[in-house]
């Protein structure tokens, strides 16, 4: 079977974030020049799931990634883990598009690939909209299921385990081709091997733009106007400095102010 995994490159977890001070996007995004980037975590699980499905059923895993030039690094890492080839949709300033715009871009490339199964992470760690997979499915006319914890391909159908709220789950069957959004923790991530890293260098990365795909992304219907640090609603009493002193101060408060120990 042919599986396409849509992945996104995001700032490294725990990166120090500063709002853009100047230029066209001043106050509307973050300063990216001094950041390092990695694969969006749920997308890493989607990639792993695709690789495991390929090991079970045979076929091909294609990585699809929309992003600026720097995303090439993350694409190489996905190829090193075992994806067969990649498509890089070169697009600067993804955050200037809304989800519909990004999904239009991805689905144009997806339609041309005619995959049996499309996997992506359930949400991105940066924008966190959690919609791209669902919207792409709608644009492609495919069924979808979200927040998936298990995938079993059964002939022309796929049976998935969907996470619900408060510890509940549900199995759903849907016909292929379909789009699934994968939850973190569905599987155990592999590391790239030295051999994998070596092989990745010879693998194909096709570079395409919206113009190459012959699509117009349309005007965003939801625009980020301003990005800022959240206002504090509660003022925590913070103890800093020497751990021993801080611990003693905290215990004092917990005992005599909060009365919880």
């Amino acid at each position: 079977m042919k599986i396409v995994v849509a992945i996104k490159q995001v700032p490294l977890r725990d990166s120090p974030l500063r709002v853009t001070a100047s230029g066209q996007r001043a106050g509307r995004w973050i300063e990216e020049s001094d950041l390092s980037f990695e694969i969006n975590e749920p997308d890493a699980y989607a990639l792993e799931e695709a690789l495991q499905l390929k090991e079970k059923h045979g076929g091909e895993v294609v990585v699809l990634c929309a992003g600026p030039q720097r995303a090439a690094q993350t694409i190489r890492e996905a190829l090193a883990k075992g994806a067969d080839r990649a498509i890089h949709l070169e697009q600067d300033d993804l955050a200037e598009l809304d989800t519909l715009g990004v999904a239009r871009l991805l689905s144009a490339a997806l339609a041309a690939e005619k995959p049996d199964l499309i996997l992506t992470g359930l949400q991105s760690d940066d924008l966190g909209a959690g919609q791209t997979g669902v919207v792409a499915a709608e644009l492609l006319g495919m069924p979808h299921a979200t927040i998936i914890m298990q995938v079993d391909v059964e002939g022309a159908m796929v049976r998935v385990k969907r996470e619900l709220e408060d510890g509940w789950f549900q199995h759903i069957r849907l016909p292929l081709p379909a789009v699934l959004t994968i939850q973190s923790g569905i599987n155990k991530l592999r590391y790239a091997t030295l051999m994998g890293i070596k092989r990745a260098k010879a693998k194909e990365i096709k570079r395409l733009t919206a113009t190459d795909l012959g699509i117009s992304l349309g005007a965003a219907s939801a625009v980020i106007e301003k990005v800022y640090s959240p206002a504090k609603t509660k003022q925590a009493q913070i103890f800093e400095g020497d751990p021993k002193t801080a611990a003693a101060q905290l215990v004092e408060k917990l005992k005599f102010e909060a009365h919880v120990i």
Partner: protein
Amino acid sequence: MSVLAILEQQGGQWHRMSWETLAAAQQFAAALKVPLNLAVAGSGIGALAAEAATKSAGKVYAVEHPLLGEYTADGYTAAFEGLVQALNPAIVMFPHTYRTRDFAPKLATRFSRTLIGDVVAARLDGASPVFVRQLFQGKLSADVRPDGEGPHFVSLQAGAWRADTLESGAAVVETFAPPLDVAMIRQQPEAPFRESARAVDLTAAERIVSVGRGIKDKENIPVVEALARALGAELAASRPICDAGWLPMERQVGSSGQTVSPKLYLAVGISGAIQHLVGMKGAKTIVAINKDPHAPIFEVADYGIVGDLFEVIPALVEQIKKARS
């Protein structure tokens, strides 16, 4: 012009977030000076619609069809597409539930719109609404402005609006029969289930020590176990710790785990993504220990220590033992 609030029920039970969304929609419709309508979908939901009609609103649309008895993304999308087309509201509001996450983006796409999801606040800039979302897992906020003609689609985060501000009234129930047929619905759902009876009931715990990514390695779990022992607390964790198998799933606190409200909740190395916060922000006293002073967990904490947990926790264990002896 109107506001439409889409409420959620399952098996005849309201999702509690429905009332928060309704309260928000009442405030928003009043500020915009436009009528508010409600909708709920299902099969045999007359009694629920009647209950919703005791709240202040214009109409309650009971979106009734045998094919809506079980939730499917295809069924719900088609049903609400029909209703939104018929009413042409300026804004459609949903509770940001797992179900909304599954079908609302698809519904918005049918109207060439992007769902503005997981909204924590809203205001009017003149007559034009601005919605606040969290970015980077709560580290930054963003003002998002819907552009162009409605309908615009917005889902509201759990706990961002309070249900106790809900206004009572007498709305009119109207049945809306969406044109559904079996061939439109591609998902075949089975009955929901729970993995196993919960051996650990965190909801009954008076004190909880909860651990997150900051613990770095499974080998380090005993560090927080010692703290839990010293406090007489249950040990819990954020999702990544359970995903990695460092602690069992049944000890997970958050939207996909348990919702707790102990007297003391001590969060160790947990940054405080919203998925975790919704499970614990009802705790009476919240303590956060984290090396990042900007971690969102400090937004909900009463007390905090900024520092390396591997230095802070042993010192804390010592002090607690002293205080309790």
